[in-house]
């Protein structure tokens, strides 16, 4: 919407081009600092169940498994929550060499800083998908949920780091959005912009 309006006015407008266009465009873009170009939501689920005696390792786990076997009742639950990531371009990393305008001022080579991805946070709340604690089994308390969430968070970050499929989908989408945006921006200037990204 914003770019369409600018495009419309620039086509009919008659303002002069800046005297040092490379520098001007560089300053304009750099002023934006952090431009967010994509978002992603990841969901993680975990279940709580008894340790089986056959699976118990070490004295502590064996004691817990024995206690669970002695105590009458069931203790099962499932929890989930969302984590948020965003893709952005840090335009402060732009250098004057990244913008190169042709002599006739009709085409531009723009090399944008690489798309960066960061975690913006996770839900403070946790979704209780299932809860069944019966008999003499102890209820699942806030401590245990906090410890579970911590473990889920650690594994999720490890998963995202180890599996590039998560970030590559977001990076591709973000690149497409950035290319569309800057191409339109160039068009509003009457410039054919060719965009590349740094690695």
């Amino acid at each position, binding site marked *: *919407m*914003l770019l369409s*309006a*600018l495009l419309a*006015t*620039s*086509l*009919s*407008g*008659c303002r002069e081009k800046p005297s040092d266009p490379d520098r001007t465009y560089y300053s*304009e873009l750099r002023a*934006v*600092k952090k*431009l*967010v*170009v*994509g*978002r*992603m*939501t*990841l*969901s*993680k*689920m975990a*279940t*709580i*169940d*008894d*340790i089986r005696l056959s699976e118990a390792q070490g004295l*502590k*786990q064996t004691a*817990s498994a024995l*206690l669970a076997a002695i*105590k009458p009742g069931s203790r099962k639950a499932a929890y989930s929550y969302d984590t*948020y990531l965003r893709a*952005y371009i840090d335009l402060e990393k732009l250098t004057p060499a990244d913008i190169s305008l042709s002599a006739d001022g009709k085409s531009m080579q723009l090399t944008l800083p690489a798309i960066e991805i960061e975690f*913006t*946070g*996770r839900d*403070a709340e*946790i979704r209780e998908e299932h809860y069944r604690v019966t008999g003499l*089994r*102890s*209820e699942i*308390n*806030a*401590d245990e*949920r*906090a410890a579970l969430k*911590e473990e*889920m*968070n650690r*594994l*999720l970050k490890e*998963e995202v780091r180890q599996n590039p499929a*998560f970030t590559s*989908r977001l990076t591709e989408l973000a690149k497409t*959005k950035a290319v569309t945006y800057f191409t339109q*921006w160039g068009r*509003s200037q009457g410039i054919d912009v060719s965009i590349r990204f740094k690695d």
Partner: protein
Amino acid sequence: MKLLSILRWTVLLALTATVIFLAIRFKNSPEASTHKIQQALVTEIKPAMELCTVEFIEDVPIKAHIGTRHIFARTTLSGFISFDLDSAATRMKGDTIIVTLPPETVEIHESTLPGSYEVIDTWNEKLLGSTRFTTAEENDIKRKVIDNFRRKIYAKGYVRQARADAAATLSQMLSAMSASPVEISDPAPGGYFKP
């Protein structure tokens, strides 16, 4: 004879109380469980075009009670203030383009840094009373903490600053992008939050 009867009843009562006490302790004794954690799933992925001007991260204590049950915890909240450039409205006034600064998006989440949520203590004023908070109760407490934090963000002037920065950045960026003069209009310099 009467003394013997009183003694008998006292011992019986003491035994019953001990059995009840031990049963409650046994039921509430901490239990170790296995955690089966599923693979993460992408539930949403979307393009965006947002200007981000302010970011924050803060440790926040959580102190709350429901009836006689109390909880004390600590959380690290992180967030940012951004502006959706795709939703910025524009209109012409003579040969000047008036761009209206869109409403700010104030996102507040629990941080993903290690140890961002820690339950320090839970207790009950009543002897042998439950110290358990259900998930719904805990979520409700956390929601209130985030609502209070949001109010603080506005009260401290972070949003006002973010809007001023966004207006300045947009003005600088759009003035050179357009052939016509550009003016940024901000109908709500203090932000759009209504407590």
